[in-house]
């Protein structure tokens, strides 16, 4: 029993020490043989050797947001399906019909978006 844990402890220690040794060597090597000399070119972000231009914040096409918005609505409306599924066996038939109407409305939204060409990537 105890020996099992001893084995695990040794294994854990070795597992920690083993990667630390090369890291320590690399750190010592960097301190001794290559001290930092920052300059303009060294600090520039790497972009195939060419000086980078323009802002770093890329603007997405706003078409992209349309998908996100349609997704958001459908995603959150599933919150009504969860309690329905949990209580499914206890529900009356009318409750089932009510939820089908709700789903029909959601599907109608999707069909409308599709027919309007909102889902076509431009």
């Amino acid at each position, binding site marked *: 029993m105890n020996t099992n844990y001893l084995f695990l402890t040794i294994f854990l220690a070795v597992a920690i020490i083993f990667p630390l040794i090369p890291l320590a060597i690399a750190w010592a090597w960097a301190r001794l043989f290559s001290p930092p000399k920052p300059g303009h070119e060294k600090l520039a972000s790497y972009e195939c050797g060419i000086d980078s231009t323009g802002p770093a914040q890329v603007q997405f096409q*706003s078409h992209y947001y349309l998908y996100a*918005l349609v997704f958001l609505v459908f995603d959150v409306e599933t919150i009504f399906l969860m309690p329905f599924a949990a209580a499914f066996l206890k529900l009356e038939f009318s409750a089932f019909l009510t939820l089908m109407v709700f789903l029909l409305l959601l599907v109608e939204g999707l069909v409308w978006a599709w027919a309007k060409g909102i889902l076509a990537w431009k």
Partner: protein
Amino acid sequence: MTLQILLALSAILFAFGLAAILSRSNAIMILIGIELMLGAANLNFIAFWRFSGNPSDLTGVLFAIFSIAVAAAEAAVGLAIIILVHRRIQSVEVDDASNLKG
């Protein structure tokens, strides 16, 4: 965990949301503030439901579910309007859209 702690937490959330709406001029930040306020209300509902004498009456949970769904719809429409504004005036700052006066 008592009801008071939860109510205090929701009050703080509500105050943060309100402060964001009143002080920020970035429309996205204002929408986030509104979501915080609605989140505070949902927390209140769940807390009041959990500590009410009758947890089998699910009214509080029901309201929270409706509130989450409505908030999503509101955020979707809100974001769409803000994107339109951004396309038109290249800015989401509310102060940049203030030509109507009088």
